[in-house]
């Protein structure tokens, strides 16, 4: 480790140690365990700044935060998966003696022989660890991928295919078309008026039509097909632009939340 790095790390450590002491003193009288509370707030602030330091460049503080985050989360999710999926959901349905061992209530009526099938598939997956029997693990994989792909196929057909087709069935001249003369003499420019409705319906029609042409892979995009495809990609890009702006606003609000934590909960500079 370079000397400069060591000095910077020492300075940061001292600063946060002081911050912990000051925070604990500030919390005295308001929190019961003010030393622990002070440590947690200071450590959270340190981790926030350590992660934000990545904006400058990769550094030991970021590495520390990253490894802590990855290690803690991997362990947490493994424990959660074991205790919620295996212990709470599977074992009560398999064996009363195992339920007793793990101190989870048995539901006698829930006992079902079919629950041994996922147990078997899970054990077959673990065969990957065996140098000779590794090929057996492909069976449960094939089962998982094949079954879920088949189930998803039906779901997508229903939600993305048939329902989207029926959503495109819009009257291009509004719901109450009484001729051009009547339309222009009663022109309604409001957002809920007939003009807006007709424009929205035309947009849906053109958007779906040209968008589908863009995603047509069997024909070269030349001539009128190419022009329609170009309109399709323009519509897609405008949609993506709107989506981008909307999501960026959400991200900014997350940043505001973090900055509020630093300035309010940690430094107490804002009330």
């Amino acid at each position, binding site marked *: 480790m370079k000397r400069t790095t060591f000095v910077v790390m020492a300075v940061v450590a001292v600063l946060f140690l002081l911050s912990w002491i000051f925070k604990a003193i500030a919390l005295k009288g308001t929190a019961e365990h003010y030393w622990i509370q002070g440590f947690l707030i200071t450590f959270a602030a340190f981790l926030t700044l350590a992660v934000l330091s990545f904006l400058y460049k990769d550094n030991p503080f970021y590495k520390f935060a990253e490894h802590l985050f*990855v290690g803690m989360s*991997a362990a947490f999710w493994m424990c959660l998966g074991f205790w919620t999926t295996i212990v709470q959901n599977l074992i009560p349905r398999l064996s009363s003696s195992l339920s007793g061992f793990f101190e989870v209530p048995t539901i006698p009526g829930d006992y079902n022989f079919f629950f041994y099938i996922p147990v078997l598939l899970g054990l077959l997956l673990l065969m990957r660890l065996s140098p000779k029997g590794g090929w057996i693990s492909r069976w449960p994989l094939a089962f998982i*991928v094949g079954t879920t792909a088949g189930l998803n196929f039906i779901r997508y*057909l229903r939600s993305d295919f048939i*329902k989207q087709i029926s959503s495109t069935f819009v009257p291009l001249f509004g719901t109450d078309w009484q001729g051009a003369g009547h339309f222009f003499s009663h022109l309604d420019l409001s957002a809920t008026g007939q003009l807006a409705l007709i424009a929205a319906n035309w947009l849906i029609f053109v958007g779906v039509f040209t968008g*589908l042409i863009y995603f047509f892979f*069997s*024909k070269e995009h030349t001539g009128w097909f190419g022009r329609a495809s170009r309109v399709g990609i323009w519509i897609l890009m405008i949609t993506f632009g709107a989506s981008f702006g909307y999501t960026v606003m959400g991200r900014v609000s997350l940043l505001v939340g973090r900055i509020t934590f630093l300035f309010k909960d940690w430094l107490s500079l804002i009330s």
Partner: protein
Amino acid sequence: MKVILGIVFLAVLLTCSVAFAQTDAMTPADSTAADTLSPPAPPTDVKAVDTPNDHGHSITVTWKLSTDDGGGAKSVSHYEIFRSASPTGPFDSVGTAVAGQTIFVNGGDKEKQSEDYFPDDSNFYYRVDAVTMNDSVRSSSEIAGPAHAYGQWYNTGRTPVLVAVLLFMILTIYFVSRARKGQELYVRPLGGIEAVDDAIGRATEMGRPILYVLGLGTAADVATIAAFTVLGRVAKRVAEYQTDIIVPTYDPIVMTVAQEVVQSAYLDAGRPDTYKEDSVFFVTQSQFAYVAAVNGIMLRELPATNVYMGKFYAESLLLAETGAVAGSIQISGTDEIAQIPFFIVACDYTLIGEELYAASAYLGREPVLLGSLKAQDWGKALVIILAIAGIVAANFGWTWFTHLFKVAN
């Protein structure tokens, strides 16, 4: 004297209160209240049948409205539905329906331990009461039944889905058989995929690895399945060029499948000995911890090319921005519409939505994949035709056509 005056005063008060009470009794409101005291006409033609298109454990009760519901004395406020295992009772209330409603679904749980358990194949009898504002003033219908619940094998409300499945099946089988016979099936070039080979070549020249990120999807997601196919192709090229590949994964099952895919690709390339088992590894199942780890890999290993294929959520921009800062060539593809904009702004090439599925067929050139891609294209052509027909139907008010596409949940 005072006593007489007091008696007169009390008499006047009493007279006035009686007079007011009589006047009040003549108001229309009290007139209606008096009417509600008489029982309304009962609902008629009550029928109890098994609820169609379900998994059982449910009976549907229908009836014709009481003549006092919206008409007559207009005194029906709601209907109360009763059920019994015997036509002679006792009947228990199972629910209510508001005035004007003529249907009630009496469903329950399929688990025997549940308090709400509703058995299949047991006979039940139903009665419907028309109830007034005064709950005790009601009239009961004839008893309907017996009816028993049972599950159906076929949901008629989902016939359009069956038709679509059959249609796709026929199209896919047809095009796959054509591809297997060796017929050339044209697929237009995809910018992002054309760049994959160049990107692998660049990585080889620079002596740097290729980072392949499969996103947060599970092995069940269509995007992840498509990403596996692209991974196979990339891994094969990597093996041929003897470059390194890094595949950090979020899901243990995805990791297992990815390991199989990469190993098979090395075998196909004739270099099984160069396959490194730890090139595909599990990181964590926490979204942002995974991002932190992958970002760290990008800056420490400095991959020449980052490929993001699969299902991505909020981490898409964080990954793509870091990759751009690290100076890597970036190729992305996802069907997650909300994340495509971030990939478009931060990556060199982006496969939008279905282009990702097409990429796997374009790269693999396998008859099955090409055939399914062609079937999808024909499916899209069908959508265009049906959409135009539907628009015409909507303009002319042909509701029968739009009803053809109604799908039960």
